[in-house]
């Protein structure tokens, strides 16, 4: 049951670690006790399997001598935690490092449970299996569909934090997501399509995205892929739909604004206060977006999360920081320190990275385009620090004389991020949020999104 009884138990346990850290004379130490209950239901064609897991452990970080030591244990006992602390301390103390002192915060006690409409813990597994089987039945109804994969995942996350600043925080939330992919053939043409759904409001996924609508959208994506032709490579005007724009904002731009990458020489270094995009562009990393995968009250460093206004009307303002980098850049910390689990030390990670809507109607964006592309969904992307990005496109259409034309497939959009941002000449007034995971050596759950936008010119790879 979700109660506060165990909270004081964990607080007492972590307090013992804090006491010992103070005794050792460290500049700063923090402890992160995580308990995650995980359930997954996977359906691959006609086979179903159910998995679950109970993941728990304590992470310790120690700052001493200009160095950061880190250790973790899978045992929730005083001895194991103290042992981990001592090992982290010994590692850090052995070398004179040159890390800046992390930003320190005030003492604080807080308990926060992200509101949930219907807990996954209150919904029996049979209901979840039944819903998934129903989705599968709808997907297999089309003769073109030769194979289906559906994966449902739920995580009940409990994080307890304690630090030598006398901060004691507990935060709980539920994270639910579903991934579905279909593979089909028709007259020798092979194609596949996928869809992702997410929520942090409990077992409400199929209220938010009804099963029939989800099946219909996915089958339509497959249909489009089966009909699509290959585009011509070159430079063209492009309209990005919210899903594709979200991936662009996260992948092409977001990483460049992570403080550790800025410190490493990302193209945003030395550009604070300068124009980096068209004045129609405002991009924020927001920890308070309703129902976002990146919606958290405190990050994994016990820092209260705050909005990072990365670009405001084209001008670069904030970067996303953790305690170390906030200190290094002499700014207030934004609360972007996140880790995949207690097994990892937090890094600067994104939360909900979105472009804010503008003033245009969506159909205005298409009007002046004689020939270009309309890009709806993607298969992810990858960025390099020099500001060059690639995003693999799944669903897209030609735009011919202002009208949406035939579908095209398997193109990518690539280019230089800042150049592309300067080329945005229209931002629509709609908005949508999407769900996924981000990798940077360790995975975290994030959201991204925004409105429809028009880019004057982008390099489109085709054949």
């Amino acid at each position, binding site marked *: 049951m979700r109660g506060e009884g165990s909270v004081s138990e964990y607080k007492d346990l972590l307090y013992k670690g804090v006491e010992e850290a103070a005794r050792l004379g460290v500049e700063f130490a923090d402890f992160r006790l995580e308990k995650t209950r995980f359930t997954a239901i996977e359906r691959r064609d006609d086979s179903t*399997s159910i*998995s679950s897991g109970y993941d728990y452990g304590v992470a310790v970080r120690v700052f001493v001598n200009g*160095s950061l*030591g*880190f*250790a973790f244990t899978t045992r929730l006992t005083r001895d194991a935690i103290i042992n981990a602390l001592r090992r982290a301390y010994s590692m850090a103390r052995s*070398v004179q490092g040159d890390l800046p002192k992390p930003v320190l915060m005030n003492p604080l006690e807080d308990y926060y449970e992200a509101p949930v409409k219907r807990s996954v813990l209150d919904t029996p597994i049979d209901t979840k299996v039944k819903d998934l089987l129903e989705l599968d039945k709808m997907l297999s109804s089309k003769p073109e569909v030769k194979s289906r994969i559906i994966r449902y995942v739920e995580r009940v996350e409990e994080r307890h934090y304690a630090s030598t600043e006398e901060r004691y925080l507990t935060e709980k939330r539920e994270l639910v997501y579903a991934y579905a992919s279909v593979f089909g053939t028709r007259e020798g043409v092979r*194609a596949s399509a996928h869809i992702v759904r997410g929520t942090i409001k409990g077992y409400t996924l199929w209220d938010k995205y009804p099963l029939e609508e989800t099946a219909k959208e996915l089958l339509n994506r497959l249909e489009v892929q089966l009909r699509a032709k290959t585009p011509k490579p070159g430079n063209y005007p492009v309209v990005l739909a919210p899903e594709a724009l979200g991936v662009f904002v996260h992948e092409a731009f977001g990483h460049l604004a992570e403080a550790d990458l800025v410190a490493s020489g990302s193209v945003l270094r030395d550009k604070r206060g300068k124009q980096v995009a068209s004045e129609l562009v405002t991009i924020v990393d927001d920890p308070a977006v309703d129902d976002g995968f990146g919606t958290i009250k405190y990050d994994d460093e016990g820092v209260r999360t705050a909005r990072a206004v990365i670009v405001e009307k084209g001008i670069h303002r904030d970067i996303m920081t953790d305690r170390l980098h906030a200190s290094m850049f002499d700014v207030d910390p934004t609360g972007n320190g996140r880790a995949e689990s207690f097994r990892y030390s937090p890094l600067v990670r994104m939360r909900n990275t979105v472009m804010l809507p503008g003033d245009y109607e969506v159909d205005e964006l298409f009007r002046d385009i004689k020939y270009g592309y309309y890009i709806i969904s993607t298969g992810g992307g990858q960025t390099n620090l*020099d500001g060059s990005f690639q995003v693999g496109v799944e669903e897209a259409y030609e735009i011919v004389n202002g009208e949406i034309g035939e579908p095209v497939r398997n193109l990518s959009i690539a280019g230089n991020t800042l150049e592309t941002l300067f080329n945005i000449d229209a931002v629509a007034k709609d908005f949508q949020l999407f769900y996924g995971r981000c990798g940077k050596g360790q995975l975290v759950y994030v959201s991204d999104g925004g409105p429809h936008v028009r880019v004057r010119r982008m390099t489109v790879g085709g054949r």
Partner: protein
Amino acid sequence: MSGRIEPIELAVLAVRWAIHEGATEAEAFTLIERGYRVSLRANKIGSLEVIDDAGIGIRVAVGKRLGFSYVTGFDREAVREAVRNAVRQARASPEDNEWRGLPDPSPSYPEPGNMYSTALAYMEPSTVLENAKYMLDKALETKDVQVVGGGTGVYVIERTVTNSNGVYRVDSGTFSFAAIDLLIKSSGVTTPAIYELDSSRVSFPSIDNIVERAVEKAKLCTKRANVPTGRYTVVLSPGPFYELLASTVLYSLRGDVFVQGRSFYGDKVGQQALSSKITIVDDGALKGGDNTWRFDGEGVATSRKILVEKGVVKNFIYDTYWGRRAGKDSTGNAVRAGYASKPSPGFTNTIVEPGDAVPEELLEGRVLVVYQVQGAHTANSDTGEYSVLANPAILYENGEPKGWVPGAVVSGNMYREVRDNVELVGKVVEKPYPGVYMPWIRLREITVASKS
């Protein structure tokens, strides 16, 4: 507090508990991972980490209903609860008519060698740290180099598998790696970040080699070149070659993908579906291989298998479940991503056999050499279509590098190109990632879109 118990003993108990709870079959997999890792970030030592992870994954069948549960640590009560969860989940699951049981013990197991060294197992954290510092200092010796990331690490890994058919296996190994991610930033020009890595099961990798390779590649990018959009002879270095192959060809060589009707090679078994210059091998028993073990994630003996021989598709990789669905034995390719995951068909040590082309032949004429790509994971596994950013792509003329071509987007169809466009396969095998052994490859008539 429960007393300390050997992981294999706990695994045996877990299997017994499962049967007691009503499972008809059960399997337990334990993993312990201990070590030290030092990370580099933004020209400094980042964090100094102590790794100490342990857990158990339990798979059960109640008739033809399957369930899986895992828990971190080896606390008896927690493991007992995990066993109950696994059985409960199996009972809630619809029947899988294709289930034909857990594997039996293999008649024999290989002795690959070079999987464990005491030098690595007892390496002091200070040594790992010294190596990281040496790598950082060496990289920063070159003017204008910025170290973005990287790190060093050593690990000791112990794994066990036991099941209700009598599988009872224990294995241990060591592993170390060193990696660097650096770029050159001078007078407004930023080169792409270049990533180099090396790893070994028995000794610490050569830091000098890693840093030299990365710096040389970054230096190639300090001069620029331009090419118009068009078709080019493209030379893929081992890293990009592997990444593009992984999303397409290797995906289609997975047994589960084949059985589900999604493999591109599904109807081409025994046919010349790739260039005769290409031979692809998976070897879970490779001596000293980064992914070598005596047994796979289900306790089945590992082995070497030829998947593609001189372009002819011969075999797929299987675990027990998918092998039986295809009417074949497991090929010892049940792979788990840690104790938290169920086994499924996966590659162990992936080898593309070298050809006979020397570097001079690979670089003859006017070619674009692709050292890294962005977005290979977005390639379409079903059709082979890809469109990736080559970063960097370097223009070579008669063996001389002429400069970095920024923003070069390389597109095509991997299935078609490994069949029809292969000109040469290089003689030198490199290891761009742990467990991946690849040559260079020269492909003709590849579409490249450029900014100009």
